[in-house]
């Protein structure tokens, strides 16, 4: 390497393709609603498994599934509903035998903090004062699917759908309500609890089936053994208090 151009090329190639060495990097794709809880759990897991670094990828469960289906190098997948995990299982993306439920949640209707006369029942969303309602896009966001099924069983979907402002994830729906760009929104109880100064829970919405969070290691993952240990960790007594503190219920 005597000439400058060769040195420049070598530098660029090494920078782009050189990998920082780490004993073990565990990549976890988790539903957006798990952001805060998982960020707190990571140091606990890293302490129990020295030399490990946990890397997170948070997004709507549907979006995460698409990434994994198209080959994203992920080791663990934690989704916010069973349907997305079922799809992952059908496509052979996860180790079905290692699939476990580790938490549960509930659906709430929230309004911006300054809003007067909050709804006391779902049917109140019919009122003309509710012009925009933030709901996760049902095709890819679990909280949107739960919301749609609840509204459909209540016969309200036809009236509410035209008012729907689609959110790409539950956290975006939360953000829309926190900024008061919408009149109401559907998020999980755990998300609403993160912004008590900006949003208030108008009512807890019962869902036809429990909101359960499944987790599973990815089939053929680079860090198979570590992935299984992470799943076991989520179910262990060490993780329970952290999840509970954020409002996640037992599975």
């Amino acid at each position: 390497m005597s000439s400058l151009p060769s040195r420049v090329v070598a530098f660029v190639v090494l920078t782009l393709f050189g990998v920082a060495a780490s004993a073990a990097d565990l990549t976890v794709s988790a539903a957006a609603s798990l952001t805060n809880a998982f960020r707190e759990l990571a140091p606990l897991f890293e302490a129990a498994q020295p030399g490990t670094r946990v890397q997170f990828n948070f997004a709507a469960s549907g979006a995460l599934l698409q990434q994994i289906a198209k080959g994203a190098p992920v080791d663990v997948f934690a989704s916010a509903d069973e349907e997305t995990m079922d799809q992952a299982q059908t496509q052979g993306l996860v180790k079905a035998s290692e699939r476990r439920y580790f938490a549960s949640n509930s659906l709430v209707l929230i309004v911006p903090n300054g809003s007067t006369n909050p709804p006391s029942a779902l049917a109140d969303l019919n009122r003309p004062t509710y012009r925009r309602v933030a709901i996760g896009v049902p095709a890819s966001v679990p909280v949107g699917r739960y919301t749609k099924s609840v509204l459909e069983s209540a016969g309200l979907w036809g009236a509410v759908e035209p008012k729907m402002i689609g959110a790409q994830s539950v956290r975006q729906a939360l953000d829309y309500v926190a900024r008061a760009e919408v009149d109401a929104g559907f998020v999980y109880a755990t998300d609403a609890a993160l912004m008590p100064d900006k949003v208030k829970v108008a009512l807890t919405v019962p869902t036809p089936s429990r909101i359960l969070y499944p987790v599973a290691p990815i089939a053929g993952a680079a860090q198979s053994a570590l992935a299984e240990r992470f799943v076991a960790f989520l179910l262990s007594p060490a993780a329970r208090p952290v999840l509970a503190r954020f409002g996640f219920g037992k599975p």
Partner: protein
Amino acid sequence: MDSAWIALGLTLKVAGWATALNLLLGVGIGFAMARWRFPGRDAVDAVLTLPMVMPPTVLGYYLLVLIGTHGPIGAWLLNRFGIRMIFTWQAAVIAAAVVSFPLVFKSARAAFENVDPQLEEAARILGLREVAIFFRVSLPLAWRGILAGLLLSFARALGEFGATLMVAGSIPGKTQTLSIAVYEAVQAGQDDTANFLVLVTSLACVCVLLTAGRLVPGHVSPRR
């Protein structure tokens, strides 16, 4: 697949209005910057060019803060006119216009600077008023350069994603432009829809480029 045509129509509408807005603002401000010298002109030029280099999400955030219900402009609009800008196609137009403004502004300024001032001086001596000089001398001479900038601006507005998603959301038929529709289709695993949308978008872009080639003739042949 109907959604693809709706998204295409909406994308053309948003890009069209954004380009029209940039035509007025870009040409006007480009002319002013080309002709008037004032202290701090370079700084103003840099600020006006910023939207071209800033990440669209940063721009989207600035816009959200400004025209959101709690923002200075948004609150005024809400209180005075009862208008909520966020999640409307007008917000999509503003986002597209802001990101593509520098393209028209820069081209217009360069085009006006290339107009020989002696021609304008001659018109002045012959008795034309300033406004008439602008429309009958400066603008026709600068027109080719401005048009090139407008076409680039239209193409940029067609593809705008980050800022639009932040201030206009993704409401099918109202603010879901082609690029946002592709994003959502991929997220939902609807590859067929995504493929069709991408095809429609690519064809639209090719049409824009072909039109550009027709309206703005290429370089003068060196053999002439």
